[in-house]
């Protein structure tokens, strides 16, 4: 290392020490003293648009694209069509876990290795170490109390524990007492927020509701186009802004538009954001505040989680819940071999229930979550 580099490091350290020290001292102040000043109105992502005057005077930046002539006669016929059952779709998951169970059932006695294998099977399903241990412990206790010595019986016990863990929680998608109802979709990048909205829009339009899609993802290139395509296909209205526009203005416009059009439902598509980005989480809070100006309209804030997500899903749920009071989880991409076991951990640790499950590419592949079925599908019946 030459001296310039060493110096650089030291200066860096200096800066970090000073700033870091301040951060820490502010933190402890905050923890001890009265709540610190209101959160700084965070700058949104790289400023692209002209400085936004904030949502209050939000001029409609957005253009409205009515969804062609398809408005009055809804495109999709009422969705009475056969909905795929969760259980059928979870077949592959079942197979994966069943493999573990047949191994266990084939043993003659229950020993430490049996428990380890049970736990490992759950971990492989992304349930996570803590929740897996908790489930296995519960089964272990019951097995002891009920003097179960047959390894084959353990599966039933574990299945009951999983169902019991998932049982509590309100799984309805609520509607506002008066029009419009607003559902907001949040989550990290690439989990399937836009596709989820498209599927729900199709269902709602099919049931005769007037639906507005708010393309509040103004960050990702062509995100609004993606939602626009879906609006056309489903017969919903699209409210969008310029790329890089203030997403708050889009939400504001969508709310206004829903009121003038007497719409039933507004689905707000937000940009994917990692829950660790403070600025972007502040932006999300702001979007919520804008919706909240219409009292009681916002009935659901749905966190979209991808079934392939590992233990980070828990951190996501925690942070999003803290920022915008998440009411439920949408579990997507459950049609692969991914197990989506992280929802067990989310329910166990945070008490946030899964409300909807996405299990395919089609618009009809959106089913309500059913804990009994989920557990049954996991372990086969």
């Amino acid at each position, binding site marked *: 290392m030459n*001296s*310039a*580099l060493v*110096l*650089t*490091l*030291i*200066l*860096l350290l*200096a*800066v*970090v*020490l*000073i*700033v*870091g*020290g*301040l*951060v*820490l*001292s502010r933190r402890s*102040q905050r923890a001890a003293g009265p709540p610190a000043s209101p959160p*700084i109105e965070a*700058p949104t*992502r790289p400023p692209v648009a002209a400085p936004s005057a904030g949502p209050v005077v939000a001029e409609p930046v957005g253009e409205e694209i009515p969804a062609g002539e398809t408005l009055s006669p809804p495109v999709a016929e009422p969705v009475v069509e056969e909905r795929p059952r969760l259980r059928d779709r979870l077949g592959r998951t079942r197979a994966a876990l069943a493999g573990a169970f047949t191994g266990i059932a084939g043993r003659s006695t229950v020993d430490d290795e049996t428990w380890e294998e049970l736990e490992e099977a759950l*971990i*492989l399903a*992304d349930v996570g*170490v803590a929740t897996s241990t908790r489930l296995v412990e519960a089964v272990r206790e019951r097995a002891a109390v009920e003097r179960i010595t047959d390894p084959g019986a353990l599966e039933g016990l574990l299945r009951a524990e999983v169902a019991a863990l998932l049982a509590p929680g309100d799984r309805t998608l609520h509607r506002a007492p008066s029009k419009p109802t607003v559902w907001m979709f949040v989550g*990290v*990048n*690439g989990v*399937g927020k836009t596709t989820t909205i498209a599927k729900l829009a199709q269902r709602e339009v099919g049931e005769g509701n007037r639906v507005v899609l708010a393309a509040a993802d103004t960050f*990702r*290139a*062509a*995100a609004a*186009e*993606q939602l*626009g395509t*879906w609006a056309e296909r489903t017969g919903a209205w699209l409210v969008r802004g310029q790329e890089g526009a203030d997403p708050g203005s889009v939400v504001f416009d969508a709310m206004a538009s829903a009121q003038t059009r007497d719409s039933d439902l507004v689905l707000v598509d937000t940009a994917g954001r*990692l*829950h*660790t*980005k*403070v*600025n972007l989480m502040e932006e999300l809070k702001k979007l919520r505040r804008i919706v909240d100006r219409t009292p009681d309209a916002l009935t659901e804030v749905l966190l979209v989680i*991808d079934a*392939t*997500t*590992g*233990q*980070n899903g828990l951190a*996501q749920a925690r942070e999003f819940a803290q920022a915008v009071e998440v009411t439920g989880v949408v579990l997507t991409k459950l*049609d*692969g*071999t*991914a*197990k989506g076991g*992280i929802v067990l951990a989310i329910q166990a640790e945070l008490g946030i229930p899964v409300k909807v499950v996405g299990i395919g590419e089609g618009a009809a592949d959106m089913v309500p979550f059913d804990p009994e079925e989920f557990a049954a599908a996991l372990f086969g019946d």
Partner: protein
Amino acid sequence: MFDALSDRFDGIFSRMRGRGRLGEADIDEVAREIRLALLEADVNVRVVKGFIARIKERAKGAEVAKSLSPAQQVIKIVHEELVETLGGTSGKLAMSPKPPTVVMLAGLQGSGKTTAAGKLARLLKSQGLQPLLVAADLQRPAAVEQLRVLGRRLDVPVHTAPEGGVADPVEVARSAFDEAARLGRNVVIVDTAGRLQIDAALMDELRAVRDVVQPTNSLLVVDAMTGQEAVNVASAFDEAIGLDGVVLTKIDGDARGGAALSVKEVVGKPILFVGTGEKLEDFEPFHPDRMASRILGMGDVLSLIEKAEAAFDATEAAAAEEKLRKGQFTLDDFLDQMQQVRKMGPLGNIMKMLPGMPKELRGAEVDEGQLARIEAIIRSMTPAERRDPSLIGGSRRLRIAKGSGTSTQDVNALLKQFKVVQQMMRSIAGGKRPKLPAGMNLPPGMPGLPG
């Protein structure tokens, strides 16, 4: 991303440090903790098993038993094994002897293929190559449009299906070569549609695209937040198209990224690049050794130095060094340095890379508002005050606080911190190893100022 993992090891090894030799039971305990940490980090169960077995084997070996500092030995072993699992050496894109070089990106839906394609195009362009982006994702609505927008931003041409023509990804891929020849492009980056590895029809399509473009590099794009499934995905894609490497995306979150370990171990192909943020320039070569160091809480000093070199002005740095030596580091200098550091990116990211940072700081998000506040405080001081903060008494404090829109407590806190650092600087300049405030450790290898 591996921060939480390194916290974990911190815990284990600080307990171990107190002891003398490692007994069998100690090794088992360490192995259990490492196993737990790796599982919580989403490393695949099977990969963990192999990893732990290797660690235990080596930890029981003579090298540890004879060592006077067994904890150090175990850290070394774990580190080496991590580097090995993560890939040994850092990889590079293979260049075709007969241009164009073809890079094909594949992966699950939402893993970040289109963004990675744009970022890769930017990187290659900055290296003097002429990339062509090919939009072979005809599944997701507006995916083509997304790539077009990225291409426009980067001033890189994008090849798409002809307007009104048949939307066939294989055809798009085939015609890309003529387009590359026509435009004189020497790298072709093919963005494919996201697909589930068990979707037979789409995997066949992917194979067909592969056969047409004969990629020099078939890359799998994997989300760093992926759980146990990463192994299945990687092996299925490898089986279908034969992978040459991996791109790991979204590592700027707090996912521990065990998927990286799993994929590398199972597929045996290097991780070439990592996506580190939302901007197109947030794309870096993957460095297994640095990543392993980070896992073990040793910080990521090498990346830091690289960033520093890019951001710092050599003459200014020399001037600051001179001041440092003489113990004349003032608030003005501090302000200058802070601005230099800000050029390197968000301070939170930099702190993560620094070795020996206390846990609270490593995870802390420093928002830019806080930096702005510090700047405001310093700028509200007179030049004399900045040179000699001891001038600042009660009424000056009040004035500074008012001038900067902060409170006197904020001003006090800054002055106090600065004093601590100044003292530290003096002792460094004096050639002594600095005594740091509680909770801070300098990395063992960090020397005092030379000369």
